[in-house]
């Protein structure tokens, strides 16, 4: 480029040179797929069938939400149960751990670091080694809870225990995340609040209920929000541990979505399911954010 050409380029043009590549990439990689999948959700279409999409209006949504045999409600129920159990236990355990580690003592830093390790691991790796831990023949899980481990349960293939097995692993992995958030919340509570309460001879329970809990609540709600969204997307752990089985007893929405989209290649129907999940997650997030705002204001 000549000196003349370079002089002609204005600041605005240079700014465009920086902005447009990003915008084009965003449009090609994010925005176009988002709207194209929305369009596909109103079509009967299989990505490998070599046939053009056929417009079916709301049929895919109707099938997912109203057809009994489509089993989608079962998948939503499993996901809801999993989210409730998993997030509930993570909040209790994570908050409990934070309360225990709130006071500094010798080795508390090391213990905190060790507790945080599970959340730094890849969910696929976690799924694989917990599969071994649950193995009734080689794993040690049954040795911890049964007197006769050989006669113990096959956790991952039991119709009832299968979901609990996934919950146990998820709680093991993500309670430290809740603990971390709660620790930062607990650390931010001013000491004078407790001092004033002590002068008023407030009991420990009263202090917890009226000072600790309200002060940590915003961060707890953020933890609940993040973990609930993650629970609704639960895929890697479930696939790694049970594959959705036995039968479809642990088949979450995300696992079903994978099956419809990539095994059966029902692209239109799976796009509709993905949009329903997206709407649910946005709705839940909105509810939490409102609660969070109320907690902050209160």
């Amino acid at each position, binding site marked *: 480029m000549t000196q003349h050409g370079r002089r002609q380029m204005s600041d605005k043009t240079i700014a465009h040179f920086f902005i447009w590549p990003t915008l084009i990439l965003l449009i090609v990689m994010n925005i176009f797929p988002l709207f194209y999948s929305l369009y596909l959700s109103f079509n009967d279409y299989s990505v490998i069938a070599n046939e053009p999409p056929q417009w079916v209006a709301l049929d895919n949504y109707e099938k997912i939400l109203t057809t009994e045999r489509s089993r989608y409600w079962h998948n939503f129920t499993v996901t809801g149960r999993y989210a409730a159990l998993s997030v509930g236990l993570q909040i209790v355990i994570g908050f409990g751990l934070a309360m225990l580690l709130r006071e500094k003592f010798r080795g508390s830093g090391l213990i905190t670091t060790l507790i945080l390790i599970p959340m730094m691991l890849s969910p696929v790796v976690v799924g694989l080694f917990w599969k071994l831990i649950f193995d009734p023949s080689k794993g040690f899980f049954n040795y911890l809870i049964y007197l006769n481990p050989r006669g113990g349960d096959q956790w991952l293939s039991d119709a009832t225990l299968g979901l609990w097995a996934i919950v146990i692993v998820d709680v093991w992995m993500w309670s430290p995340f809740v603990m971390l958030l709660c620790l930062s919340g607990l650390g931010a509570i001013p000491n004078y609040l407790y001092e004033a309460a002590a002068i008023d001879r407030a009991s420990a329970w009263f202090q917890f209920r009226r000072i600790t809990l309200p002060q940590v609540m915003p961060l707890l709600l953020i933890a609940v929000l993040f973990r609930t969204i993650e629970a609704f997307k639960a895929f890697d752990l479930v696939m790694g541990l049970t594959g959705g089985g*036995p039968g479809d007893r642990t088949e979450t929405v995300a696992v079903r979505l994978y099956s419809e989209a990539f095994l059966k290649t029902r692209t239109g129907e799976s796009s509709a399911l993905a949009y329903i999940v997206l709407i649910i997650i946005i709705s839940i997030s909105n509810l939490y954010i409102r609660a969070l705002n109320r907690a902050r204001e209160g």
Partner: protein
Amino acid sequence: MMKKTGSFLLLAVLVLSLALGVGGATAAPKAQVTELKIFWAQWPPADYLQEIGNRYEAETGIKVTVIQEPWGTFLDRMTAEWAAKGDAYDMVVGDSQWLGQGAEQGHYMELTDFMVENGIHETVTPATLQFYGEYPPGSGRYWAYPTEGDAVGWAYRKDRLEDPEEMAAFEAKYGYPLAVPKTWMELRDIAEFFYRPDENVYGAAIYTQKDYDGMIMGYENVMFSWGVNWQDENNQVLGIVNSERAVEALEFYKELYQFAPPGTDNAFFTEVNSAFINGQATLVMNYFAFFPDMLDVGKNPYAQVTDFFAGPAGPYGDRYVALGGQGLSVLNYISDERKQASLDFIKWFAQEDIQRQWAEVGGYTCNIAVLESEAFLNHTPYNPAFAESMTFVKDFWNIPIYNDLLEPAQRYINGYVVGNVGTAKEALDGMAVEQHEVLVEAGVIDG
């Protein structure tokens, strides 16, 4: 203004070209094929094919690369490639169930003229040509060259079955001598006899896996041997897959699972082999292609006392085993030059001498002459059982919607056998109704 618009357009084209990588591809001149890429699952036969491919390179100068993908994602990756109409691979050694999809949806190149003109269709056994190459069944149209024949067979601990004390105790208990089972009922008795959790010894390790087709590839052996098929001659499933005999067969399979080693609740080829190698299982079902490990003393401490047999007969005289194995297909999205180069490879590969070499390195040839040869039958201890099995194989559906039919089958059978969900009748009724709806929706049968 025009200049600005021009520079934006230029920039947009540049970025899009970089993002989509179209610059080089469109401008590439037609070139002589120097490499052929074959896509297959990650397992020993793919290594054997690579060895054969190296010999092809030595003869012709054309490099052959066998790209291996783990079994768990093999279908996913192929599906993604089909969806993109990609040309990353020239050929695929695809599952027998994929034939309908490959043929009807245009992913596979039709090989009928090529195979007939070169007489290749007459060099392989009729069963393998039918299951690995022909679609629709009986049409005489071919889409794949039968490459890796396979079926489900059995490995067993000879030291346990031939132990004099065990033999005496077994005969005293069951009233007939302990020997390699000829019927499923005998197999069940052996599994029960050796079920000794306190000694960490168990009966039979069988397929139970929830993913893809694991559970069905195990159950099918019993189902077919009870005289049950996946459909009748009109493709109807109601009253067929959930017939009384089907219920009996499924109950039998579940009973057999009660004698399986713990931890085989999600077992396929790797897990059943492990249960045998770690000394727990007395009998294991597995595809013959996974038996080489059983004879490897470095992997199996019981290799010296391991022997093999073909699937037993059912109570009504039927005897069938589930088909494994794959055929070699040319993908439709490659250039004409690459298609021709792929056909040249298949023509070379299908020669009797090369098929003999394929069998020698460990591949399961479908070539009639090689299969019948003494050299093949004596090559490994399991080859006679393999050759016998290939005469009574049956397979799952291979129409384009096979996965829609497979999914409810896997779900219901796995739920019942492993998870104790409902009864055998309820499981099969549920499966039958869902499969019927899938077939009606796809227009295969009338509602």
